[in-house]
């Protein structure tokens, strides 16, 4: 049962990545456009679809939750493989180009947050 969840996740992941790669090719870029985003949307739809038919069993869910709980350790491992040496020893131009736009971009955050329609906080959020 567990493997069904993992397989569902893997199926969504690969389909999403394929969509992202295809979109990138159609638009003549060398990049994957939104593969992870598509995969996430697919997983959300698949979950809804299966839940409506009572086919989304708890063991299946735990196969996906296992990976979702491994997320932070994976990110820690990712941090440990970043090229921090180059970032810290980079020239002044790279330093400025890395820092200034981030700081200025943050100014847009309150504007855009205010522009979106009010969203009711999902109930699970209050916990």
């Amino acid at each position, binding site marked *: 049962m567990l493997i069904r969840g993992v397989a569902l*996740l*893997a199926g*969504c*992941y690969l389909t999403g*990545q394929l969509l992202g790669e295809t*979109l*990138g090719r159609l638009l003549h*870029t*060398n*990049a*994957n*456009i939104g593969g992870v*985003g598509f*995969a*996430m*949307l697919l*997983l*959300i739809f698949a979950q809804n679809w299966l839940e409506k038919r009572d086919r989304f069993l708890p063991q299946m869910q735990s196969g*996906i*939750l296992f*990976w*979702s709980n*491994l*997320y*932070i*350790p*994976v*990110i*820690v*491992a*990712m*941090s*440990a*493989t*970043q*090229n*921090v*040496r*180059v*970032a810290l020893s*980079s*020239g002044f*131009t*790279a*330093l400025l*180009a*890395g*820092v*200034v*736009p*981030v700081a200025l*971009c*943050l100014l847009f*955050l309150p504007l*855009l*947050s205010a*522009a*979106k329609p009010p*969203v009711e906080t999902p109930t699970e*959020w209050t916990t």
Partner: protein
Amino acid sequence: MDYITTLLVKNGLIVAFLVTGLLMVVSDELSRKLTRSKIPGSAIAIFLGLSMAYVGGLLTGGSKGIADIKALSGFELMGGSMLRDFAIVSTALGVSFAVVRKTGMAGVLSLLIGVVFTFSCGAVIAYLMGYSDAKSIVTIGAGACTFIVGPVTGAAVGASSDVIANSIAAGLVKSILVTIGTPLIARSIGLNNPSTAMIFGGLMGTTSGVAAGLAATDPKLVPYGAMTATFYTGLGCLLCPSVLYLLVAALVGH
């Protein structure tokens, strides 16, 4: 002693699980004892991870952080894009689709602003720092977006290799700044709900930075931020070498 290293290399991924696990135990203890859980253990773990990457880079002169040390080469797989993206996708389980749909437009807008504005800032900085040809200006501007957009754009417009190296460095600085900075400023910028996390992901774009920064802030926000951030690099690779390059070329004259 050689056979021990061989054993560790052969079981690289398992070694990475063990070392990361120990690192997180230490981080959780530090978080509880030194900061009374004010700074989350995950934030400390990510910071320690970055420090380890720096040490790895210093010791080996390589570009893959701690993974360049032979016995720890399994980190490359555990922290690589395959497992990272797989784990990010899994966090979509339980995401509220209502929030995603309602914030959708603001998310798209934040992506466009994020790419175009970041690019413009980077390009202006490149110009002020003495770069005068469109190829270099565009490549540095693209590097300010993410460390993938920079080299992709540089290769597409034919920039020189030192400019491309500079653009990668700019992207790395951004990624690390977002990783460390997000939990520090989250409260003051209202980054405590899924909608704002989606907009934040679109504005910042660096998937590794956003994912790690949000993980250190509140893991529940990660899927929302990651969902928009994942479109950013692609959009940057689409816009920078094309429309934005033509625009800059027209502005500087060659």
